[in-house]
């Protein structure tokens, strides 16, 4: 009798212990773009996140973490399916990895419906910063307009009188230029909106030359940015009409652009040469492990992992009390690779923006060098519209 009840107690204890161990495993869905022309961005995001988990030996914040990687193919319909699958079948508690805003908007609904925290390492759509802000959504990089605004602020402060603008003919392109114009109050002498898959910008460059601006501001991502910069340099305009940009020239596209980018300027929230101990260590470890230089996408993703780790530590790995974890996310302190980090009332970051210049080193290698801080503790323009609900 005694043996039997001891045995039952033992089994019960083992079951409870097993259940306890089960509840402790953190399951994170990493939904990012791994195919298509912008796949390199997803690769950086995935590798950045995995590096953080690996550094803690398969844990975040001291708790065993499982990362499930999925490819959204830059398609919102696929993203909805995958977010639903991750939430309902894989039972993730946190969704991350999303780079593009259209994917983010699509994946948000399944996340919220399943009470999954959505931590975006890159996508920062204005709707989620403003009217549609959600207690489930956290952006750890920026609101999409900010790097454009930063460059606009820089050109305004530098007294540049006439600017010509180029962005792709779609929503994000137009929003980007609106963001630029919110800070730049000088004379916009012309605007070009090339089509999304346009490869040849000879016509646009001829227009720029004829308009005689003091500088150009460009937002052209991926292959478009590579093509434009190369062609702009071939037209011998880089020193004549300086090129300022965001999301166009970075560690991912620079190898494909090469010398053509020398003498151009970019705004970014991070650069490999930022003098922070956490950053120097990150760049070294990343390069050693993966064999290539991290871009800001890798750094942002690593940051989001470190934020999750800090929040987990603060909340004791407890994810069932959603309110407590949300609090932990908002208040946890971690060493961000970009410098100072804090959340604004709309769950978007308050952070710095830097001016980068692309230079050629003595050994012939082309790289981006941080010149100055353009904006300190910058807040996005949409926080005022956010009426944050409580969990």
């Amino acid at each position, binding site marked *: 009798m005694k043996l039997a009840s001891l045995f039952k107690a033992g089994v019960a204890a083992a079951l409870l212990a097993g259940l306890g161990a089960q509840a402790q495993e953190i399951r994170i869905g990493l939904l990012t773009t791994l195919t298509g022309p912008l796949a390199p961005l997803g690769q950086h995001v995935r590798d950045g996140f995995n590096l953080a988990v690996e550094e803690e030996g398969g844990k975040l914040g001291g708790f065993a973490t499982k990362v499930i990687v999925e490819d959204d193919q830059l398609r919102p319909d696929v993203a909805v399916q995958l977010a639903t699958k991750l939430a309902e079948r894989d039972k993730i508690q946190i969704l991350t990895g999303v780079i593009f805003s259209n994917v983010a908007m699509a994946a948000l609904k399944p996340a919220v419906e399943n009470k999954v925290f959505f931590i975006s390492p890159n996508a920062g759509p204005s709707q989620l910063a403003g009217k549609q802000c959600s207690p489930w959504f956290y952006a750890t990089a920026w609101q999409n307009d900010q790097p454009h605004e930063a460059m606009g602020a820089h050109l305004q402060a530098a007294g540049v009188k006439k600017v010509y603008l180029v962005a792709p003919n779609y929503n994000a392109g137009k929003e980007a230029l609106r963001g630029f114009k919110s800070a730049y109050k000088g004379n916009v002498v012309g605007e*070009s*909106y*090339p*089509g999304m898959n*346009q*490869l040849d910008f000879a016509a*646009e460059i001829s*227009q720029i030359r004829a308009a005689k601006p003091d500088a150009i501001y460009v937002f052209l991502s991926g292959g478009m940015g590579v093509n434009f910069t190369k*062609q702009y340099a071939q037209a011998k305009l880089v020193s004549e009409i300086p090129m300022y940009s965001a999301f166009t020239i970075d560690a991912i596209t620079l190898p*494909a652009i090469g010398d053509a980018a020398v003498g151009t300027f970019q705004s970014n929230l991070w650069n490999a040469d930022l003098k922070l101990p956490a950053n120097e260590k990150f760049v070294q470890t990343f390069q050693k492990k993966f064999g290539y230089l991290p871009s800001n996408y890798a750094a942002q993703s690593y940051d989001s992992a470190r934020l999750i780790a800090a929040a987990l530590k603060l909340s004791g790995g407890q994810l069932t009390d959603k309110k407590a974890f949300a609090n932990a996310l908002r208040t946890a302190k971690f060493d961000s690779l970009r410098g100072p980090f804090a959340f604004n009332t709309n769950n978007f970051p308050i952070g710095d923006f830097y001016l980068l210049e692309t230079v050629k080193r003595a050994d012939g290698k082309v790289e981006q060098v941080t010149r100055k801080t353009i904006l300190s503790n910058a807040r996005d323009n949409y926080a005022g519209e956010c009426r944050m609900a409580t969990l």
Partner: protein
Amino acid sequence: MAPTLFFEQMLNGLQLGMMLFLMASGLTLVVGIMNFVNLAHGSLYMIGAFLAVTVLMQTGNHLLALGAGIVGTALVGLLIEWFIAQPLYGRDHLDQVLCTFGIILFLNELARVIWGSAPLRMDVPEWLDGSVDLAGIAYPVYRLAIIVVSALVALGLHLVITRTRLGMLIRAGAADRLMIVGLGVNIQFLYALVFAAGAALAALAGILAAPIYTVQTGMGDHILILTLVVIVIGGIGSVHGALAASLLVGVIDTIGRVTLPAGFGNILIYVPMAMILFWRPRGLFPSHG
């Protein structure tokens, strides 16, 4: 628009048109003579660029890269002709479209597997890197070189097609395929030759474009669409039609993009295509096929 700007834009349009001609001349012959709708033509453009970049990275020699790219792609063209096209001759165009569309997807993924998804760089050769003063504007030498090379190719094609026996067979095949089969011409050889030549021309276009555009998987997709517009306007099977239509499309696209509001410029080229389909469905220079 100021006269110098207009002149510069016309030059841009000419250059785009000549590049399109290299693509369109090959495709129009394949479609016209072999009655084979080869959507994978854009992939041959991509393969030419990738092969050239790879050889350039290994050897640093631009001319070697050019040669290797053209020859290599011609060989790939022969493989595609032998294994994919031959079983589909005489079949419904839809079957050919489905099959070659599948080839596009396959080759795009294969390119990603072999070369990765990040764009590759090919620099303009040093002896072509510079600008020339034309009527007060500094026009890149390389773009002028593209115009010159394409014009020479056009001249060469013209001479082959109008002055040689092979050219005669090609014109005859475009006009009436069944007749030349009936006359005992080795049609297998002719088809393989035309396909390989088309592949070589596409590769040349891709390699010339590589220093200006990125070399990346999927780079052939956009130019394929423009090429199809060109051959519809020019007339299937006619190289002269391809030349006229390429220049037309090149200039309309360029001027449209800078004079019309955003978005309209990109769709402007479909207007002449629609007009041609409506009023002269066989194209500007039909080959009586």
